[in-house]
């Protein structure tokens, strides 16, 4: 029998590889009996889902939630402009 500590470890591992059948059954059985580990299991999937949302947020057309600091933006603009000017001078 797995204890709760072991189950949390295996729950995480099951998110990265397919566990052997015996272990999958043991986990499923434990989660049915233990509401704390069942909650933990759901939280692990919550964390996965929310991370996925953050990972792809910039690729969508949503308005970004993170706004770059105005000073940094000005600095980057000026660095980029300098590079553009340098290239034009060379040409």
């Amino acid at each position: 029998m797995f204890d709760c500590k072991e189950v949390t470890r295996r729950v995480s591992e099951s998110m990265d590889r397919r566990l052997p059948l015996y272990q999958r059954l043991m986990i499923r059985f434990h989660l049915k009996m233990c509401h704390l580990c069942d909650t933990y299991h759901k939280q692990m999937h919550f964390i996965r889902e929310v991370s996925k949302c953050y990972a792809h947020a910039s690729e969508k057309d949503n308005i970004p939630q993170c706004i770059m600091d105005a000073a940094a933006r000005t600095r980057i603009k000026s660095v980029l402009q300098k590079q553009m000017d340098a290239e034009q001078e060379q040409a």
Partner: protein
Amino acid sequence: MDKAAASQRANMTDPATWVDRYANDLYQYALFRVQQPPVAEDLVQETFLAAYRSRKNFQGLSSEKTWLIGILKNKVIDFFRKRDREIPTEHIEHKADTLVDEFDEKGHWKVGPAKWSVNPGTVYEQQEFMTVMQKCLSDMPARLSRIFVLREMEDFDTNQICKEMGISASNTWVMLHRARASLRNCLEINWFT
């Protein structure tokens, strides 16, 4: 200039407008992964400069933003590789062992997780939640937050992580477990209670 090249160039906006158009999107992409605003800003700057230098390679097959994100993605990976070389591994692994043990000596929960009755698809749009999530990831030992980002944001599988971080598969699973457990604990303390 042949016709194809001309049309490719026609699809590209004036580089002078890139910062206004894309800086926030790129900054957000970088910040979610590296967690430190000054590092994210530097990576965005390097991305614009690299994109400008290689603008002739822009094929126009994807959008300009997707192309820039592709460049930034590599900058983020390079940043982590460089940092890994600079931080001694044993220091990081030692820090990982100081995580809170949530179990008693029999392997039972001391307190146990609380119920989180929120939807991941809506909570991520809340600025406060995002701030907490980033703080939790940045408070983690560096290699733990990195492995978490590789797995859950970059969708790397075990083999790719082993190769990228130079660790075994079993070490990968242990570290991912620690990262998730640490993040869960931190979110619960700082957001859900």
